[in-house]
């Protein structure tokens, strides 16, 4: 089947927008750089929706665009693959990206460097599209690092801040650590399967030994763990909140960080042929999801609560992958994209509204808020929708996707199901705690806004509204996604649905008790158990361990460059040269120009010569 032209829109529009944006707008009219970029967002969103509809109707494309490199055992063709998986995620990414681009126009208004912001932001978008529609592992890797670069640039967007620079570097470095796994998996695939193209690799799985399949699967998961912030490589994501809020919403919540889950979903045939890998993914997902949920409950910074929530939800998606529940993972990826973007944008509206009381800080904590529901009823309402969706209250989107994951877990065993319910409980707890602390009450310890906080303008409110509608209603697409992935529409297990809802309600109850019935609880436990807060602050000590590893690397570099290279090895080689000079000087002492000495040397030499001759004959 030949490629329909909207596929080319997916690449052409962002590339054109970036070129026009950089070479024309950025130089001449930086206040309008977002114009071509918004146009490109609209075009790609339409194209993506049309393509998703075609795929839903049964179409599908997998074709080669051009030969990237081929020699010896290394053959890589770049191409496009649009199937149920990529088309469904693509539609979500394009819609959410478009909305957040619009939101960003309002949010970044008046900031210095807005033009640069939109260029980076759209560079991310382009890379994300390339990642999703790629038809082979190496091309995925190329765009995978592309989104990593955009992440680096945008986390460090407010680069005069030391913390922003450090966070962006940490993000890139941690992702490179994960990328080693990804690229090694690619080398092994090239060696074992002779190809990196998905369909060829999956067709040749039988030729690969089980041990090698397991190695490749684990290496791929190592890469996915860095991008999707799974323990032990999750450390970069909380710090990534140093970037502007639209960045956190789009990249570090809704789309980019789900790339790891997407890669796992893409590699499902490979993973299913290596069951130990699935077990590892499940365990890593569980550790991540539960740990991050606990840490999230303890956080004060609004964006960091949401960041840990994202880590936790990604862990939940990994659990779904690990239980072989492809539809659950992908559907939760999509609904999570809607409601987490909504929650982040609401947090952004709060920060925007509190701007004057924040003294230039880029984020707000629970101390800065309290009782904002009165000043920001619209934002508060939208946040409530997001919170209900996240916690899995019917009939909002999160309910359906989480329900699918719970069902899948239950099929795999009761212990696993119990732990998954625990994750659901945790997510309900932290999100309602955040909701109640931010929009209700006003506790004695909360400074609150100095003046009245204000609702943002229309440019920011409309995307929030649309996302709220999507978060509330996206549950109806469950059957659609399942069909696109080639599965039967999910059946509905009443018991799981009821218990899931009860768990969400229980989370709400605990959150209500700890924030409204005992309004100062959040400050009391910190005062009473400072060690506990410190312990949670560094992710149960893991952040300190990774800092120590990075510090060890730097110390090694200083040792090699200083103590060895410039104080030992370099002086040694130079000493060979100076040694020669000294030897020459020493020998020159013999030749002082005294004739009688020369005669003696001549005599000695002649004697030695004669002696040698006599000895030989």
């Amino acid at each position, binding site marked *: 089947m030949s490629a329909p032209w909207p596929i080319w829109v997916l690449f052409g529009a962002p590339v054109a927008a970036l070129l026009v944006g950089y070479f024309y707008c950025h130089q001449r009219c930086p206040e309008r750089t977002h114009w071509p970029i918004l146009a490109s967002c609209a075009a790609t969103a339409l194209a993506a929706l049309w393509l998703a509809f075609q795929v839903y109707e049964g179409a599908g494309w997998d074709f080669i665009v*051009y*030969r*990237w*490199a*081929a*020699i*010896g*055992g*290394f053959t890589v063709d770049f191409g496009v693959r649009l199937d149920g998986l990529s088309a469904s995620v693509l539609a979500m990414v394009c819609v959410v990206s478009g909305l957040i681009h619009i939101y960003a126009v309002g949010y970044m208004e008046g900031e210095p460097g807005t033009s640069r912001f939109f260029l980076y932001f759209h560079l991310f978008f382009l890379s994300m599209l390339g990642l999703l529609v790629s038809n082979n592992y*190496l091309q995925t*890797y*190329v*765009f*995978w*690092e*592309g989104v990593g*670069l955009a992440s*680096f640039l945008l986390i*460090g967007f407010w*680069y*005069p801040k030391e913390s922003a*620079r450090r966070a*962006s*570097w940490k993000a*890139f*470095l941690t992702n*490179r*650590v994960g*990328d*080693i796994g990804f*690229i*090694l998996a*690619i*080398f*092994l695939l*090239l*060696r074992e399967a002779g190809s990196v193209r998905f369909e060829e690799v999956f067709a040749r799985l039988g030729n690969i030994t089980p041990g090698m399949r397991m190695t490749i699967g684990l290496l791929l998961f190592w890469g996915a763990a860095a991008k999707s912030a799974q323990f032990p490589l999750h450390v970069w994501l909380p710090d990534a909140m140093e970037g502007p809020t639209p960045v956190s919403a789009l990249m570090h919540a809704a789309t980019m960080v789900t790339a790891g889950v997407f890669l796992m979903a893409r590699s499902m045939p490979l993973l299913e042929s290596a069951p130990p890998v699935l077990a590892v993914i499940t365990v890593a997902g569980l550790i991540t999801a539960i740990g991050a949920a606990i840490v999230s409950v303890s956080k004060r910074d609004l964006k960091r609560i949401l960041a840990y929530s994202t880590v936790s939800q990604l862990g939940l998606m990994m659990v779904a992958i690990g239980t072989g529940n492809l539809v659950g993972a992908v559907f939760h990826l999509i609904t999570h994209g809607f409601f987490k973007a909504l929650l982040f944008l609401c947090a952004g509206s709060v920060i925007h509204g509190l701007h004057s009381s924040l003294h230039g800080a880029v984020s707000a904590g629970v101390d800065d808020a309290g009782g904002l529901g009165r000043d920001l009823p619209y934002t508060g309402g939208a946040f409530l929708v997001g919170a209900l969706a996240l916690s899995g209250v019917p009939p909002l989107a999160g309910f359906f996707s989480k329900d699918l994951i719970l069902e899948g877990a239950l099929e795999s065993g009761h212990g696993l199901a119990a732990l998954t319910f625990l994750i659901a409980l945790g997510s309900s707890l932290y999100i309602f705690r955040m909701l109640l602390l931010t929009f209700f009450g006003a506790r004695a310890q909360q400074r609150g806004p100095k003046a009245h906080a204000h609702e943002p303008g229309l440019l920011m409110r409309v995307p929030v509204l649309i996302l709220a509608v999507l978060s509330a209603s996206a549950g109806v697409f469950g059957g659609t996604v399942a069909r696109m992935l080639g599965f039967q529409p999910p059946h509905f297990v009443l018991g799981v649905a009821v218990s899931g809802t009860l768990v969400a309600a229980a989370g709400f109850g605990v959150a209500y008790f700890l924030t409204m019935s005992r309004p100062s609880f959040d400050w009391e436990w910190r005062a009473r158990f400072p060690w506990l807060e410190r312990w949670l602050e560094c992710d149960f000590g893991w952040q300190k361990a990774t800092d120590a590893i990075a510090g060890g*690397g*730097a110390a*090694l*570099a*200083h040792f*090699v*460059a*200083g103590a060895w*290279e410039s104080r030992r*090895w*370099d002086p040694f*080689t*130079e000493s060979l*040269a100076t040694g020669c000079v000294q030897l020459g000087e020493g020998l020159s002492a013999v030749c002082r120009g005294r004739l009688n000495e020369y005669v003696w040397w001549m005599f000695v030499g002649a004697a030695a010569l004669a002696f040698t001759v006599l000895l030989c004959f």
Partner: protein
Amino acid sequence: MLLTGLWVAPALAGLLVWGMPSRGSARVLALALSGVILAYAAWLIVPYSAQPGILRLEEIGTAGAFGIRYHLAMDGIALCLCWLTALLIVLSLAASWKGDVPPGYWAAFLFLESALMAVFTFRDLFYFYIFWDLALIPMFFIIGLWGSSGRRKAALKFVLYTFLGSLSLLIGLLALVTLHYRATGMWTWDMAELARTPVAGPAALWIYAALAVGFAVKVPVFPLHNWLPEAHTEAPAAGSVLLAGSMLKMGVFGFLRVLVPVFPELSLAALPVLGGLGVVNVIYGALCAMAQKDFKRLIAFTSVSHLGFCLIGIFSLTAEGIAGGCLQMINHGFSTGGLFLLIGMMYERSHRRGVDDFGGLAATAPVLSVYFGVILLSSIGLPGLNGFVGEVMTLAGMARASMPLAVLGSLGAVLAAAYGLPAFQKVFWGPPGPDSVSQTIGDLDLRERAVLGVLVAGIVVLGVYPQPLLRLLTPAVEALALR
């Protein structure tokens, strides 16, 4: 005549420029002539690809005393390196435009170009060796006369160190040719002839080692690398570009052209040693780069790291590895050459090159920072830019030969992020340095943008679509591949 012209023309151009009466006219003439030579080198693709099936140009004279014979040949690898050299010469001359230097400076670069072209095209080891050593002379003067404060010591160290390497090479070559004579009764210095009758026995191992040491000094391979940081740091910017961009490639080229074809068995056996040293280069160079405060020295050490990938690729002895090594040579010329040019431009404006001397240049020199960013990203192997292609192919090749070495080599990607990005952040994003240099630094002018624009275009094109270049390399590379 086509190939003779390639090395004679720059020499004649150098003489002409040297004889110019004024500094201004020498400058104009040098740039114009180097441009003509670049065009000529580029045009060689036409006759090169006009002979289907043979895919190379060749000129053979008759053998003289001791079998020395004028023999030039051009294959894909040599063609790419000649293009790179000719391009870098033009760019570095354009970049030194403002320097008030005598005609000798411009002539030295053209003489260097002549020697490099000869090294890349001669197939007779006698001539190869002559030009291998002749190339040292112009670079000695470029560093020693026009370098920065420590130039005299750096130039001396450069010449002594690399000349010792050449000595090892010479001994190895003499032994090789003599052994060949004893075995066959025929004197020859021709690479192809020598490859046809392999030398065996313990002597072969000694010859192999002597030749490897000779080439390794030039690459440079750890632990024979420490002439490089000082020479790169003290040389003028244009000199560093040529040193890193073209001269280091002589060493890699030597491995490819002499060592692998003449000693295929030994090269296969040398995987743990020479492939291992490639990995050491990658990691050691990156670690040293991480700790540098002088930006030029930092980039010098990244060269050590990058050329480690060339070694990894070549001694994997797979087609993709060798091709990756060749691409890595080209790509390193673009990225490291570009970085040295950029540091040179910053030095020209501020007379500083410490990482901590600058800060916040993204605001004061936005165009400079965009160029710097792209070229640095290419250097640290960001996919989509050219640096990635060489790295991924060399490592993929090594994964077929030895997985442990490939795993260790891929650590270089993490270390690259660790040395490249903090320095970039400090200079372009960080707080300004101790004095007002960063505030008053001017952005790039049109000439500088043009010079860097050529490099950036190459970086993007070779990263997005490396296949045409790869196709050019394929016949020569496949002839070398043994695994």
